[in-house]
């Protein structure tokens, strides 16, 4: 009983400690999501390229966020050999300004229509529950300690984008276009 009591006291202290410390910790989950998003974007192409349109795809993300920091690291590492431009956006409406891809946080998603974004040619990437049901294109989901992804072919088609078959084979779920 004495040992049990000591362990219970210890667990209470742990809970208190984690409450204090968790707010300061960095988030490697976001770092991994940024790496996967950026890598997935490499395999996205336009279905019907317009002559004279820049070859590089425009990847939009909200500024001053951890995901933007992560994407910037990926961009810096690959900037010379990758047809992808990163644009950091200050307001949700900025996502309607011609992005080929957009990473949307839960907060962004509340203020935007995923279907409308697809119609304007934006392939959306997000990590919120029900992202595909809401019309999102690529859903990043945590499985154990790993990040996997599901694809909504309907959103890809609406956004006039294609995703490499090599990548589709790696998806946890590929939801067919209706």
């Amino acid at each position, binding site marked *: 009983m004495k*040992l049990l009591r000591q362990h219970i006291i210890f667990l209470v202290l742990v809970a208190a400690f*984690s409450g204090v410390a968790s707010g300061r910790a960095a988030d*490697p989950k976001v770092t*991994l999501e940024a790496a996967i998003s950026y890598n997935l974007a490499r395999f996205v192409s336009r279905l019907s390229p317009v002559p004279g349109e820049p070859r590089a795809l425009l990847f939009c993300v909200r500024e001053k966020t951890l995901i933007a920091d992560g994407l910037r690291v990926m961009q810096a*590492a690959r900037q010379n050999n990758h047809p992808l431009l990163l644009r950091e956006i200050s307001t949700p409406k900025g996502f309607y300004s011609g992005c080929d891809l957009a990473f949307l946080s839960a907060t962004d998603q509340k203020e935007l229509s995923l279907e409308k974004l697809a119609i304007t040619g934006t392939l959306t990437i997000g990590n919120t529950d029900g992202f595909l049901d809401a019309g999102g294109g690529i859903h990043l989901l945590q499985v154990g300690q*790993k990040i996997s992804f599901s694809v909504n072919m309907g959103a890809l088609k609406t956004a006039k984008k294609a995703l490499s078959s090599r990548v589709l084979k790696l998806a946890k779920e590929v939801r067919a276009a209706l």
Partner: protein
Amino acid sequence: MDAFFRMLRGGAACFASLLIWVAFSVGVSAQVTPNELSRLSIEELLGVEIEDIQDEKRWFLSYEFRYLDIGRYQSGTDKLTFDEVQFLPGETRTNSNYPIVPTFIEQKVHAFSLGREITDEMSISVTVPYVMQQTKHISFIAGFEEFEIESSDVGDISLLGQYRFLRAASSHASFGLGISFPVGSIKEIGDTPRGGAGTLEQLPYTMQIGSGTYDFIANLAYEKDTGQWALGIKGSATLRTGKNDSNYRLGNNYGIELTTRFKGWSLIRPGLNVSLRTTEAIHGRDESLLIPGVAFPFGASITDPANFGGEKAKLGGNIRVCLQDACTINLNVRAAFPFYQNLNGIQPRERFSVSTALNYSF
């Protein structure tokens, strides 16, 4: 089992075998920095675990509470009752019965560790333990029919360097080398029957806080992901040098552990392990523990240096709970029960051990 322990005693050979096995089993890296992530393929990224992502340099802090419960007796693999071990007036005194019988021993350790990632591959840590021990005894000696002795103090401080020498998306291997400094006391005293009531005498080996010698610590570990399970193997050894101020040296020990962890859940990771460890007897002896001028100078089994060490096989379980998604704060609870013990001489046997650790990296 005996044959295996004989092999284990040849610690160097065991380590060499492990090293060769690891070298043939491994490919690339499990711990990755954000910069390294940018160089991985999409297939490799999908195999990376969130907790394996770390900053370029990182500190880690750990507090661990360990509890070890020892009690009742064994000689070799045979269990003995207290009556079989205790010498009572009228019986024949031999070298296998004792006037004083320690019955139950509790050891509690509060260990604090601070570590630092020096490079992506190398880390260094220092551990400071605070050791608290309590032993219950029975004897026929008047005034000492039942008595307890306690000792507590800061134990031996260890410095350990860990190097990750093989890295793969689904496996990793490392080795560690360290040294334990003889900070812990080997001069703990208490009121024992040896000098009569009210006097303080040198306590037996089990009640001392430190080893009194500079000890080298080594480990070699390998873990491989197989879907939702991770399988691992770890070898470790403690090699002691010279003799301490009380003219003895605790025995070297060599161990090997097989582990499996379930990785299918993000925040809770249960695991099982089987460990085998062999420990040598004490070399030399502390003369102050002897009863002078008698045929059998050891008043209790734990004062005879030959009654130390042996072989133990344990089955253990552990559960690690991440207290946040990134798992930079986690709690690790472990428990182990010996299912085989082959002990040198007559000595109290281990019954179980429990530990709870809180780890924080920043």
